[in-house]
């Protein structure tokens, strides 16, 4: 990651062209959805940044995206692929809910911290077995983590339907967490809470960890050349395992923060695919923690913006997925020209 990046005129021009391309395709899609592009953009921008409420909503929705992306990024530093963020997030959410509705330590802060630690531990546990299989048997972690998502989804479906079902709800969901576990909203009428700062804090910690810590340095070297790392005395397997565990913990934490800060229970269809969106964000951000925040903001703004677009026009809300994907495709295409061919 060390190395000077020159900002040449050509790169600037290409970046502008990239933005132009994305915007024009977006305009085309909005037009196809039955709305004039300019109005469409206006609603999207108003809906995501228009007033302090919308802006806070955009920030709030970044929380799971940032952490899910970080959950991919940290293992990627050591050359591991974590496609299981979705499952780890679900497990983490369940862990937080489990603590939240069953235990009480009396002090709000203690409660919240314990619940978050448990959520991270649950996420970590779900990342542990693919990592273990990988380092012990060289089993491809892409398959195991991917399949883990589906197994986790069914497992959670079972848990919230049977042993931990909220008997008062016709929906499959856990009981609500106790009020002492709730991370309170900071502003009237908005779901924005301290979870955002936790997520940003994690990103900063990761950034410093990677640049300044011996272990972070070992992560980078392991990812860059595992054979070399091994001969340098770095315990490659342990490092890879550790990175995967941290990744799982981050995804679990994302779930925990969602429960404590927003939903206050785990219900069916808890995650609309945070794990996969996180993967995309991470790849667009070259695994860089700070860039992840920027890209997550874009994704989140598109999401809140498209809710607003749906409110005032007849354009269906699915458009946010289309717009996000278009953005990913163009950025991926231009990446080669703008920053050259390098991964991570």
């Amino acid at each position, binding site marked *: 990651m060390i190395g000077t990046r020159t900002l040449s005129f050509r790169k600037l021009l290409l970046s502008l062209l990239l933005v132009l391309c994305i915007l024009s395709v977006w305009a085309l899609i909005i037009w196809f*959805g039955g709305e004039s592009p300019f109005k469409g953009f206006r609603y999207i921008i108003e809906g995501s940044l228009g007033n302090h409420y919308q802006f806070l909503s955009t920030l709030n929705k970044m929380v799971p995206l940032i952490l899910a992306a970080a959950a991919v990024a940290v293992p990627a530093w050591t050359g591991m692929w974590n496609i299981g963020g979705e499952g780890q997030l679900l497990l983490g959410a369940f862990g937080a809910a489990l603590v939240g509705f069953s235990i009480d330590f009396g002090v709000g802060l203690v409660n919240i911290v314990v619940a978050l630690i448990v959520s991270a531990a649950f996420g970590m546990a779900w990342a542990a077995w693919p990592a273990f299989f990988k380092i012990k048997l060289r089993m491809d972690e892409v*398959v*195991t983590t991917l399949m883990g998502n589906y*197994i986790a989804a*069914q497992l959670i479906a*079972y848990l919230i339907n049977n042993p931990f079902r909220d008997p008062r709800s016709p929906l499959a969901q856990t009981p609500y967490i106790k009020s002492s576990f709730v991370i309170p909203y900071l502003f009237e009428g908005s779901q924005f809470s301290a979870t955002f700062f936790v997520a940003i804090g994690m990103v900063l910690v990761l950034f410093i960890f990677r640049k300044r810590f011996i272990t972070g340095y070992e992560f980078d070297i392991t990812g860059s050349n595992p054979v070399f790392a091994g001969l340098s005395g770095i315990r490659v397997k342990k490092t890879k395992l550790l990175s995967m565990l941290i990744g799982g913990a981050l995804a679990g934490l994302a779930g925990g923060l969602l429960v404590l800060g927003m939903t206050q229970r785990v219900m069916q269809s808890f995650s609309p*695919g945070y794990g*996969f969106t996180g993967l995309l964000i991470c790849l667009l951000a070259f695994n860089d923690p700070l860039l992840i925040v920027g890209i997550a903001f874009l994704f989140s703004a598109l999401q809140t913006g498209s809710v607003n677009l749906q409110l005032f026009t007849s354009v269906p809300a699915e458009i946010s*997925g289309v717009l996000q994907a278009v953005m990913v495709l163009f950025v991926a*295409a231009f990446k080669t020209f703008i920053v050259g061919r390098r991964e991570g």
Partner: protein
Amino acid sequence: MDIELITTLFRTSIRMATPILLASLGGALTYHAGIINVAMEGLMLISAFFSVVFSYLTGSAFYGIIAGVVASMLISLLYSVFVSFLKANNFAIGFAINILISSLTLFLMRVMFQGKNAFNSPDIASIMELKVKTGNYFLDNYLLNFSILTYLSIAIAFLLAYIIYKTSFGLRLRVCGEMPQALTAAGIKVGVIQLWASILCGGLCGLAGAQLSLYNVRMFSRDMTGGRGFVALAAILISGGKPKRVLFISLLFGLFDALSVKLQNEKIAPQFALMLPYIMSVVVLLLFHLKTRKQYGKA
């Protein structure tokens, strides 16, 4: 176990296995060309959508399949351009395409069919079955009366085994995955080989999608592929892309799907039964690795 039960299991397995088989055969091609194709889910879905739309409009399943295959090939072409020529990360592009198509099909349905996210109609023509009644129970239930695409898919498995291991294209394909520099040195463009593999993969995923939406059921509903593209990916990675093994693993997955329906009762919660195909894919992979670990002594 009575025979009727086994027959039911068998027929369900075959029906559930066919789309997985077609998709994983397609993915096996890109796998040999050095691309782990995570976009198969999306390719199947776009084909399922256009198959239904064109089958509905033209009243012919054949045109439906063609439309689905063409749509899937076009998306696959897009995928290949990004991955092979623009050197973008295949996971990024794959997942982006999945999200794009999941949203796009819904979006198109909203725009085309006025606010539906499932579309069915008696005017949707179905893929033909090989309908022969011989009177022999075994023949009728175990060999005949499946979708023509089922027979085609098995034929394709053997055809691909031939193409990959016997033909010139197959040789280049394998080299492309193992050592692309060797191809460049021989004056063959790696990107072109990958492009062809991707397009063929698109075609096969297109057939898979058409089979799902014109035979397994005759309708389109949102995200109706339900993770089958990823199961296909698991089948490829487990089998190492060898077509005959892919065939075997896909049938195995079909069986697990059938069992996941069958095993539910008072004692086994549906969730655990439905986990089965995914757990088994991990277990099968695990067994393969335990076996290979014995072969190499090194840790």
